């Protein structure tokens, strides 16, 4: 397994001539004060170093270089040689997670993987993640399964976790994470505070998404507190063996629910289920859609309000770009795109929030300013992570909320 990863890593890094084009679009490089190993070219160079260290049994303290990668893939679209520095980071994280090199495993990453494996939720809060649906009806006989993947719900905890880490300090935080990774049940004792304002906002967005589906005549099932997290962290952090096992469990739960079609609502879950699950789960075979695929345009009143749309990386920077959100918005408003858009869209910084919150803060502030310069009145996002990080003013609105405001009476 490690040898396969190393071979793939070698094949990717050896395509690189070190021209540096990727650095110019890598959001983490300026946020990290131009410390090259936290930029795209630096990661490819460190990928080579990792290969050499593994082959020569050398030591290398390299994890921060790869773990700080946002996995946005912006680098790929400017690389004249088709090198994907994001892939290099992912492969390198997988080598680290697979014990291909010692002394580089990240305690917080270990904790997230370990807790997710035990509770099928990275914070062990599946019950809380179902609270938004209280009082609503589900159609248990429907083959359409609304699958939130817990993503919106988890956003109410990330800032709180970071505040806790700040309070107890980096050293203590790493020690606590190490302990929880060995005894995942300890997560239940951790003083994790939910941001109630954020929680209400996210719950509202979830309710609005459900409303949009109903208005389009979609009757759906929902697993409530049995709904598992899709395993995004486990995959992104490189725990590929664990992910294979975990994704198999998730797929079984989804299949057992009678789902014929999974309705995802966020870009990360959509991308993971559509593009990664088929590779890791034998005969996955369940149709995956995004809820906007099912929303009928006739439900909306037209309009020409000026808005800025921030395109999520997992929609715009994947092999098959998913543009349905943009098309839907264009049917209800006059959409402006910031200078970095489409295949050049810029990450909100969110994926770094748990491991490198200081990078996320700088990246999201910078992106927010770019969006504001485009249209200061209204900024629409289509991802709970983007929303959570770019929500720096009342003008930022989640796409589901925005579309509900455009429904015909």
């Amino acid at each position: 397994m490690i040898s396969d990863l190393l071979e793939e890593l070698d094949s990717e890094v050896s395509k690189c001539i070190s021209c540096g084009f990727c650095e110019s679009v890598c959001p983490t490089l300026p946020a990290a004060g131009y410390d090259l190993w936290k930029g795209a070219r630096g990661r490819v160079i460190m990928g080579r170093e990792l290969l050499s260290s593994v082959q020569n049994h050398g030591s290398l303290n390299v994890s921060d270089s790869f773990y700080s990668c946002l996995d946005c893939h912006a680098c790929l679209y400017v690389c004249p040689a088709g090198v994907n520095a994001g892939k290099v980071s992912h492969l390198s994280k997988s080598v680290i997670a697979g014990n291909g090199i010692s002394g580089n495993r990240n305690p917080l990453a270990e904790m997230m993987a370990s807790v997710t494996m035990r509770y099928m939720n990275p914070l062990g809060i599946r019950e809380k993640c179902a609270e938004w649906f209280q009082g609503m009806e589900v159609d248990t006989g429907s083959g359409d399964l609304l699958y939130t993947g817990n993503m919106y719900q988890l956003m109410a905890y990330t800032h709180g976790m970071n505040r806790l880490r700040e309070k107890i300090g980096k050293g203590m935080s790493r020690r606590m994470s190490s302990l929880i990774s060995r005894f995942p049940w300890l997560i239940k004792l951790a003083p994790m505070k939910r941001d109630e304002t954020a929680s209400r906002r996210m719950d509202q967005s979830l309710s609005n998404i459900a409303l949009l589906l109903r208005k389009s005549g979609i009757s759906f099932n929902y697993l409530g507190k049995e709904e598992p997290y899709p395993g995004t962290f486990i995959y992104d952090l490189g725990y590929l063996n664990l992910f294979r096992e975990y994704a198999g469990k998730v797929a079984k739960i989804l299949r057992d629910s009678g789902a014929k079609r999974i309705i995802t609502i966020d870009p990360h879950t959509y991308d993971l289920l559509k593009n990664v699950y088929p590779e890791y789960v034998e005969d996955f075979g369940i149709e995956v859609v995004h809820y906007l695929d099912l929303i009928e345009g006739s439900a909306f009143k037209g309009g020409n309000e000026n808005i800025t749309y921030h395109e999520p990386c997992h929609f715009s920077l994947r092999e098959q770009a998913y543009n349905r959100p943009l098309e839907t918005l264009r049917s209800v408003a006059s959409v402006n795109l910031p200078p970095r858009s489409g295949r050049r869209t810029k990450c909100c910084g969110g994926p770094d929030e748990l491991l490198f919150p200081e990078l996320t803060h700088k990246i999201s502030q910078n992106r927010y300013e770019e969006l504001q310069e485009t249209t200061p009145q209204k900024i629409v996002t289509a991802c709970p992570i983007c929303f959570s990080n770019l929500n720096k003013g009342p003008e930022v609105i989640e796409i589901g909320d925005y579309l509900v405001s455009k429904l015909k009476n």
Partner: protein
Amino acid sequence: MDHINGLSQILGSNLITEREQKIPYMTDASYYQGDLPLAVALPDTPEQVAAVMKYCQDNSVPVVARGGGTALTGSSIPLKEMLVISLAKFDKVLEVHPEDRYAVVEPGVKLDNLNQHLSRYGFFYPPDPASSIAATVGGSISTNAGGLRASMYGTTKNWILGLEVVLPSGNIIHTGGKVLKRTAGYDLTALLVGAEGTLGIITKAIVKIWPLVESKGRILAYYDTIEKVGSSISELKGKGITPLIAEFMDKITMHSLSETRGLTFPEGASYMLIVDIASTRESIDRELKQAEEVLRKFNPISTEITTDQAAMDRIYEARKGAYSSLLSERSSMSERVVIGDIVVPASELPMALKESEEKARKYKLTVALFGHISDGNIHANIYADIADQDHMSRVEGFQHDFAMIAIKHGGSVSAEHGVGLEKKELLIMEFEETGNQYMMEIMKSIRKAFDPKGIMNRGKMFDQ
């Protein structure tokens, strides 16, 4: 270790000392691998640069300045315990004055970012090296970068009005000014352009800016021989037509762009010529047709005209990334691409191109040719197996002969990439072949006047 303490006191957290974090600074876009630097300084004010330089001069610590790390001759890599001074944090456009035709820019600003900023004013900064997405203002000044638009606008030296420079002594000098003409003593601004960081560290630049062209269009012409490509451009220029850009590429390059960018080319095309014409909205179509007529005199396989911006952007980006794309054409994993860079008078191009191809055959090397053909600049991209001694000696032989072609036809061994580590011997050869041996003495004297202890980018451009 003492130096680390001394530098830490000046730079605080702006100093990188961990081994792993220093590794990416050993590389630039050339095939050279530098040494692990003593440390990496990331100063954020000219005063901090000045304090670092004073420390380094007082303590004889060698330094190398780094911009975007896009150098192709190894000029920005550290050798033997050098301190890397990265100017990346100097990343702001400070002033734009369209009415006076200048902007004040920090050296770490990337060229494409500068032009994106200037476009809001309807202006641009013409120097346009292929690496403009990553190359910085400071780095491109230090190598006197040329690029695609040099055909019409010349190279970087034509666009620099003044500089703020930190000398090795720690003194900060201001050369030139915010005016388009100035004759007051030696032109130190011109001297610093292309100095490859051997004289001082640029911390601010006053650059000339120009209104954006009103309208442009592109002619793509495909030929079966390289002489026809060269003759077409000579004829075009002879007719008084100055292209905005005029680029050519050979079959290997075209194939690599098919592989990496999905571009398609006509069957049987061995060479592609890209000619952009800039004009007014009213005249662009007429001028494109006139230029196409000239190109058609040399029996191209086909020609086409486009004014579609998206199509033009796609080809432009592909051409700019051609150097990196070429790696897809290598025959073994240990092959690198060594990029040669010569210039000849445009009228000498047909012969110079033909001779370049002959030399590739003589040394049994795979060489991809592309370049900025309008200003006589040829890039020979040599597939070099760095693990094979015999192969590398043939590469060296080709580089020598390729340089001799430039000299024979009245050109230079370095058009726009500078000298760095790669062309130190070729520079001496050029001086000797042209009867200018004394030039090296003058250059050494100048360097000594700026840098008496020889700490600035030691070992680059020429040995002291």
